Each structure stands twice: as structure tokens, then as C-alpha cells.
């Protein structure tokens, strides 16, 4: 997405179009797959393309896209953030606890601060503590889930959500769910940050070769800490809006099925062409990767397919997509 506007002065436009297409074949392929799926979905079930279902899938996908972009940041800088799901849950809990007690903007800021604080801790442990991001965030993941168990005593909590807050999660603007609009905004901002800003360049440098980045004068440690803070903040934002949607929070740990989110975000960015060892990946890819799963899920549910077969099909399709793009990449 960042390379769409090559200045014609530098490259012949025909060549540049070819370059854009060839540099982003994966994204195009993925978009193609999604369009095909939507067509299949519409064919299999007429309600798939109903306003209600589109709205519902769009809202759902928004909750997957925002944390996936956080994961993308971590992955681009050669890290990984396994704590994203736990931060979402933490943010949900804090939102529910706060929303009846303090004004909405204050609640929002506090929730975001929680997210940023977790990111700061993750980042500092990686940079100062010299720990591998995998280890750090695996640790914070379990600790945060433990914390929300302690705070809630394991029980679900609920709040009488003020209308303004509820609107963020449940409202629509000209038929488009508010969470989707927020996610769209996040996508735009993140594509500027990642692909257009100087920070983005630093991010790719660090992910590609941190030592060379250091020798080129880039403040590697600062970039890494910022990345973790941004990733956690996006997770916190997601949790805040989820809380607005549900008005309640139910603590989860790995044993009750909470392991899905963190790994799903990673799958989404990798399906979207990112490389876990850093330096490669795009916002549009992550967006498409997250969308693919959401769309697939909706189709499989609508088609009334057995839940276990659903997981099997989903796994096989993702595996196929990954193998396809890997083989394409190794050929070029």
C-alpha cells in the first residue's frame, strides 16, 4: 500500500505498475481469495450478503483487525506479542469497572494508559532485561489473566453502560457499525505510521537488522519500546470498544479458552505476508489476513457446518494460503 504512488519521474509508470503488482502479489492473491469466498458465501447462503450479516461480520472483523495491526508492529520489529489477548481482556475489565464511576473520556484515557503501561513493561523487559519478546509476553499474558481473575474473583462483571459508551460498541453511522469506523481509522493511521512515516522506516530497519540499524544511528531500544507500547495500546482500544459492545466482562484463562486471540492475530499477520523474524509485512496484508478468518467463519456458520469440521476447514484453508504464498515467495 505504501508503494502505490511511485513518482513517475523516477520510474516509468508501466514498470511501476508492474512493480507494485509484483511486490504485492500476496495481498492481491489474498484479496482475490476473500472476494471469491464472499462470492461462494453469497451463493451458499442468500443471507450471507444481507445487510444484517455484513454489518455483523464487519463489526466482528473490526475486533480482529485492530489487535492484528498491533501484532504486525511487533512482528515487523522482529518481536512477537503474545500478551495482546490478555491486554484486550484487561482493558475490557478496566472499562467495565470504570465506566459507571468516571466520565467516559477519563475512562478511555485510563484504559489506554493501562495498555501503554503493559507495553512499556514488555518493552523494557525486552530492551533492558534483554529477554526474548516471546518469553516476556508469554509471561505477561499469564500474569495479566491471573490479575483479572483476582480482581473479579473469577466472576463476570457488568456495568450499566452509558449511552455514549454503548454507541461506540453497538451504534452505527449510515449503517456502518461504529467499531468498523474506528477500525478503519486505525487502519489508515497505522498505514501512515508503518508505511509513510520516518518511524516506519526505523521499524523496518530494526526488524531487518537491528545491529545495522544501531550503527546507522537509529535508536533501536526506543523503537522497540514504542512498538510494544503501540501494540498494547491498540489492544487496549479493542478491549475498550468490546466492553462498550458487551457492557460486561468475563475473565478467561488458557484453560477456559482464552488462548485464541493471541495466536489468531499472529496467524492473521503471517497469512497477510508478514515474516515473524521481522522486516517484512504490510498493513493491508494484516487487514486482509484478519478479514479472511472472519469471513470464513461467518460462511461456515451460515452454511450450518459442524463446528469441528469448521475448525478443520479453517485450518486447512489457512495452511493452504500460507503454503501458496511461501512457495510464490521462494520462487521469486
Amino acid at each position, binding site marked *: 500500500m*505504501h508503494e502505490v*504512488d*511511485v*513518482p513517475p*519521474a*523516477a520510474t516509468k509508470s508501466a514498470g511501476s505498475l508492474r*512493480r507494485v503488482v509484483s*511486490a504485492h502479489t500476496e495481498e492481491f492473491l489474498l484479496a482475490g481469495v476473500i472476494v471469491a469466498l464472499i462470492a461462494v458465501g453469497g451463493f451458499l447462503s442468500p443471507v450471507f450478503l444481507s445487510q444484517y450479516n455484513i454489518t455483523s461480520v464487519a463489526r466482528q472483523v473490526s475486533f480482529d483487525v485492530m489487535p492484528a495491526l498491533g501484532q504486525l508492529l511487533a512482528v515487523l520489529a522482529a518481536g512477537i506479542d503474545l500478551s495482546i489477548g490478555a491486554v484486550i481482556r484487561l482493558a475490557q475489565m478496566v472499562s467495565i469497572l470504570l465506566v459507571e464511576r468516571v466520565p467516559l473520556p477519563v475512562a478511555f484515557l485510563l484504559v489506554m494508559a493501562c495498555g501503554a503501561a503493559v507495553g512499556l513493561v514488555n518493552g523494557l523487559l525486552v530492551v533492558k532485561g534483554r529477554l526474548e519478546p516471546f518469553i516476556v509476553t508469554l509471561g505477561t499474558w499469564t500474569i495479566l489473566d491471573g490479575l483479572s481473575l483476582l480482581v473479579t474473583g473469577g466472576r463476570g462483571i457488568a456495568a450499566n453502560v452509558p449511552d455514549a459508551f454503548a454507541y461506540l460498541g453497538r451504534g452505527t453511522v449510515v449503517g456502518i457499525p461504529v467499531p468498523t469506523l474506528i477500525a478503519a481509522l486505525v487502519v489508515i493511521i497505522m498505514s*501512515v505510521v508503518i508505511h*509513510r*512515516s*520516518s*518511524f*516506519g*522506516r*526505523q521499524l*523496518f*530497519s530494526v526488524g*531487518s*537488522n537491528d*545491529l*545495522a*540499524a*544501531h*550503527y*546507522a*544511528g*537509529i*535508536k533501536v531500544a526506543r523503537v522497540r519500546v514504542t512498538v510494544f507500547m503501540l501494540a498494547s495500546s491498540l489492544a487496549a482500544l479493542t478491549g475498550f470498544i468490546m466492553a462498550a459492545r458487551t457492557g460486561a466482562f468475563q475473565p478467561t484463562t488458557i484453560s477456559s479458552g482464552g488462548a485464541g486471540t493471541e495466536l489468531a492475530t499472529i496467524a492473521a499477520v503471517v497469512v497477510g505476508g508478514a515474516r515473524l523474524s521481522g*522486516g*517484512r509485512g504490510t498493513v493491508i496484508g494484516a487487514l486482509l489476513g484478519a478479514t479472511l478468518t472472519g469471513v470464513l467463519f461467518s460462511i461456515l456458520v451460515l452454511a450450518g457446518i459442524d463446528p469441528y469440521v469448521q475448525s478443520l476447514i479453517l485450518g486447512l484453508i489457512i495452511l493452504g494460503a500460507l503454503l501458496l504464498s511461501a512457495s510464490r515467495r521462494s520462487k*521469486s
Partner: protein
Amino acid sequence: MMSTAIELQALTKRFGITKALSDVSFSIRQGSVHALVGENGAGKSSLIKILSGVHQPDGGAVRLFGQDFAPKDSAAAQLSGVSTMFQESQQVSNLSVAENIYLGMEPRIGPFLDWSRLMKQAGDLLGRLGIEIEPGRPMATLSPSEAKLIEMGRAVSRNAKVLIMDEPTANLNQAEQQILFRVLKQLNEKEGVTVIYISHHMQEVFDLCDHVTVLRDGQHVATLDVADTETDGLVRLMIGRQMEAYFPTIAAPAQGEPRLVVSDLAHPARGLDGASFEVARGEIFGIYGLADSGRTALTNALFGIQTGFAGAVRLDGAPFAPTSPTAAIEAGVILVPEDRKLQGLMLDLDLLHNFSVGNLGRFVSNGLFEKKTALEAANTHIQRLRVKPNNAYALVKGLSGGNQQKVAIGKWLNRDFRLAIFQEPTRGIDVSAKMEVYEVIKSLSEAGVAILVLSSEVLELMGLCHRVGVLSGGRMTATIERADFSEHAIVSAALPRRRA
């Protein structure tokens, strides 16, 4: 003696759009030492990687001792009697020396490793080669050049009929080179091993080899008897044009206040013991030193990679003690580091990115990266440095060593600086790339930049520098003016001195 060991028939190899080899045909006589020369990117390594089973050709065929030879991996090549010492370092740092030598061919008792026999075999082999390294030593404790000798030990241990050496001397000092040459001669003359030898050092070709094949741009140019050729002719064949003066003519440096003043820079633990010297504006100051003389420590101090040095550094009169590369760069210092792949480049990103990271600030407005400006700048550098391919979107990992080095230098050309440090600026790069690097250094000097060149090639320092300082044991033991340059003077000042 006159039969053919290897015959290449119209060998072709492509990497994406790059044609590394096109229709290369020639033969190598059994029992000969056959040199392979050519500029960076000529295709030498690609060729030998096909022989070693690392790459498979896209066209053509190879015959080994009259048999079809198409190894699908290194294991297959070794089974057929071809063993290789690659250009890139091939060491396993977390194992012992002995395990490195016999990697994949360890003596066994049943399914188990026979440790004692392994150690003994390795000891015997090292003894026979005259390499004094304990077989039980962890590989990580070896210097890069010692490690290279162990790699040679590995290649030799395979009892190959064909031994390939790709730029084996690039990292070795004089004494170590002698070991390598001796082993090579012994294997070739006593055991009849056929040797393929790649080097950028013409002298080695003439000293060691019987035949030489010249490659240029992936094509076979000539295969000659070494006895029938001389350096100039060979170089002409390699670069395809007449070679002008090797080193640029250097004007006398501007006089005046020195730009860089280093006084008593010391950090005993890191091997600096009170080094002092000055560099003027526009002066190219060479620094020569043997292994462990303190060159790296000096660079680290000046570029803020390490801190905690005693003594004083002044840059244009102001005290200078950078605490990070960022600080050094902001003060107007740049570094072209010795390990370009590890320290200098983002290999899997494109030229545009690599050129712009040297000064991201220049391409930013309102926090946004101005790609258009950066692209223009990158294209300018590509033209100026004659980088191949001339495509700002090419990934750096696909470039040859010389071209990568140009990128490592070029990233700094987007900013103004006062002091430039070049560490081994021409290591492993070919004649014409070298000349281009020298040209850049010269033009920087003409622009008033103070330049430090740290090199282990005496001739290079003599050709390029206004003055050469010699480091030994962490001190500047001599500073020699251009008029007084002699190989002897420089090398003898570098020899370890006795402790006071």
C-alpha cells in the same frame, strides 16, 4: 596427469533476473591448481556452488572425471569427492574445533559418537597441517582467521579428489596464509588433489596456480596457462577495459587546525593503552595494525559503540565523547563498518531503504517520509557509485560484495559529516569496485572531511593515505608521512612491542 578432472558444458545459472552464469564452458585438468578470477559478481562463487551441490544449474552440464556430475546437495558432492572451503565463514561456534572439522563425518561406535577417536583424529590432522590449535577448544574462542584455518581442516579432512577454495586468504595474516599455501601445495603435489582456487589477489594466482579462468558478468572470457600471462593482461580481461592508475592521485591535505585530536585514548580491558594522533581536515589518515592491536576498540570509541574510555578526543576543537552511534552521527562522524552484512546493511530491504537510513531526518517532513526525495537521492547515489543493478527497489541481499559495500558507504552520502571512519573498506571486493571506493574517499577528502582508514592491507594504505599511523598493543607506535612510506617501516612498527 593430462586427463580432465572437471568439464563444464554451457553452464547457466539465474537468480531471478540476474544471470550469474551464462553458457560457461571450460575444463580443469586433473592434478592442477586452477585459478578462477573475475570482478565481484562475475559468477565465481555461483560456479563453485554448483560444483559443491549448493546450487543446481538452470542449464548445461558438468562432468567429473568423465562421469555426469549433478550433485543435488553438498552431501552428494562430497560423496563424489568434491570438497569446498566457501567464501563466507563456515564455522559452528557452539561446538569444539574437532567437531567442526569432522562435522558430518564423526567417528562412531554404533549410534554413539566416539569422542576420544574424534579428538585424536582432529589432533593428528591439525598436527599434520601445522596448525597449532587444541582440538578440544570451543570454536567460539577462535579468532576469525584461526576459524578459517579450521575450515580448511574440514575441507581437507574429507579426503577429496577436488578441493575448492573460495577466497581463502581474505581474512588471514601473513603467517596463516603461509600455512594455507603449504597445505595446498602438499595436497596438490603429494596427493594429486585437483584444486580450484578463487582469489582477488593476482600475486596468489601467479604463485600458486597452473591455469586461470577469467569470468566476467557471468561469461567465460578465457582460460589460460598462468605461465603465459601477466597481471595487467589478466586484469584487463577481468574488467574488460584498460586499467588506469590504481589509486587516485591525492592532493596534499588542507592545513590548519586539526579536525580530530585523539589524546591518550585508553581502556586497558578493551585493548587501548593510550593512543594519540591527529587528523586534519581533508586528510586521509591510515591506521595499520595486526590482530588485537586495538583497531576495533578505537573505532568503537570514536563511534560511540562502547563507552568508558579514558583520555580525550576533540572534534573541531570541541570535546567529543559519544555515548551511542546516534550521538556520534549527530556530531558529524560516520562509520563504514568492517562487517558490512552484519553491521552495515539491511540485506532484505531495498536500496532505497538502505540509502535513506543514513539520514532519515533529511527525508522527513511533518513526520512523514518523503519517498520521492529519497528515491531521487538514492538514484543519484546509484549513478555516482555505479551500483549494479541500477534499480532502487532491488534488494541488497542480491547484490555482489562490491556493490553491497557501495551501498554501505552510500547511505552516508545523504548527510554532511566531518569525520569518516572506514574499516577494511575494500575487503573482499574486486579491482574496479576498489577503485570506485577509493574515488569516493578521495572526493570526501577534497570536501574537507577528515578520514580514518583502518586496513590490514599495507599497500592499500600506502596508495591511498596522506599519513599512516601504526597501532600496536593499543598505542600509536609510529606515524609515517607519505614521503616516508615503506612496507617495511609500517609492518615493523606494527609488530608487538615488549611490555614496559
